[in-house]
């Protein structure tokens, strides 16, 4: 089972950042850095850092909500290489309930997430989409096939958890 834990402080910080307006992109994106704990059949991602994609690293592509340029990917991969983090691409959708990836999200993350293993093969990597209250994600345990994050835990003054099954 794959679990994802994050403090409510970091979760709120990410939500706040992803809702900032951008000059031309309709959405903002960023990367979460996480540690890893493995026991039995449980894989737990422990989110500890967030790096927003810099304003200048977006490409002006009106057909997409947000398109990262090569510099954004370079910086993310450099981060994973230098600091032994699991990298999770993150962006936000509007709405309630448990969010889901769009077809474009899935197609694009299928392309770039496996590349993270080139710099940090011993860590899993993935993608998360969140809204005001919940999140959903996919984790690649190897470059081959993603699996869903089954449980999310928000840890803090208002701790909560939900299953995506």
């Amino acid at each position: 089972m794959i679990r994802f834990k994050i403090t409510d402080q970091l979760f709120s910080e990410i939500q706040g950042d992803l809702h900032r307006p951008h000059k031309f992109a309709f959405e903002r994106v960023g990367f979460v850095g996480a540690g890893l704990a493995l026991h039995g059949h449980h894989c737990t991602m422990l989110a500890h850092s967030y790096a927003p994609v810099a304003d200048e690293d977006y490409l002006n592509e009106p057909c997409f909500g947000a398109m990262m340029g090569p510099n954004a990917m370079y910086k993310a991969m450099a981060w994973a290489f230098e600091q032994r983090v699991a990298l999770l691409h993150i962006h936000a959708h509007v709405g309630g309930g448990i969010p889901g990836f769009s077809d474009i999200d899935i197609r694009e993350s299928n392309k770039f997430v496996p590349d993270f293993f080139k710099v940090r093969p011993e860590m899993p990597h993935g993608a998360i989409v969140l809204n005001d209250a919940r999140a959903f994600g996919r984790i690649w345990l190897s470059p081959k096939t993603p699996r869903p994050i089954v449980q999310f835990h928000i840890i803090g003054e208002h701790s909560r958890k939900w299953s995506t099954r």
Partner: protein
Amino acid sequence: MTDYVRQSFLGHDAQNILAEVRVGLIGYSGGGSHFGQQFGHIGVGHFVVVDPKIIVATHRPRFIGSEPKDVEFGRLKVDIAERQIKRGNPDAIVEKFKTPWQEATNALLECDILFGAVDSYKERAELERFCRRNMIPLIDIGMDVRVLENNQYTISGQVIQSLPGGHCMRCCNFITDDKLKREAENYGDAGPAPQVIWANGVLASTAVGWGVSLFCPWRDVPKIFRWLSYDGDTGELKTPALVKGYLSKTPCTHHPMVEMGDPLCDIRNFDPSSRDVARSDVTHLNDSGTNASKNSSLISFIKCLLRRP
């Protein structure tokens, strides 16, 4: 009207949330037994209880739920815990580990919160580090009785909540290298530490309230480091000045967030289909690792005798 109507202010979904919460109790005696009793009654649904010892007579004056026969039979503390918890919530799942907590980490990793009622700074430091690495909230309690110069005594204690990303027991100087060193030097010289039920009750009840508020908050409260110092002579619980002073301006540097997780983990060695021993298979293990207790061995022996011609 349900049994829990008097705590319905915790939220319309509170009982479902509490039923799903997994609470880990590290140490089940003077402090831990209060946790078990209260969380059972509140409706918490899943417990992991860890204590390697059996009850002895000197535990009885402060061990909630213990009976004289428990001492007579040399009952395991974790067995008493299960009995007490289920008196409050008969549907509770109670996983018991008659081991040091370091040998129950797989079960503790699945807990949503841990409550520490351990006896030493060393244990506290290790437990806090484990919780911080694995992003598990920890609430710790402890009490002390000291002799004064005039041969009178003073009772004191503390409740400390250690949340990932927040301040820790080192931030408030409750754990220091000097205390750890002195404790290590005194190891084996210290006699049984004095403890009394009412002080443990105050501290544990406060901790239980904090724990519930993390999952079922009933009001917005300022987000400050939760640390209460207990004056057992006056009955006062108060927030040390350090919390609103120095700590309010200084983040924790003892448990950097980037140190989350196991630095030696390698996902390439992970088999997602492998399983631990199934939780339902684990009741408790004695020192030889077999699934037996003194009582069940005695009962088996008696049954064997009765079957003889």
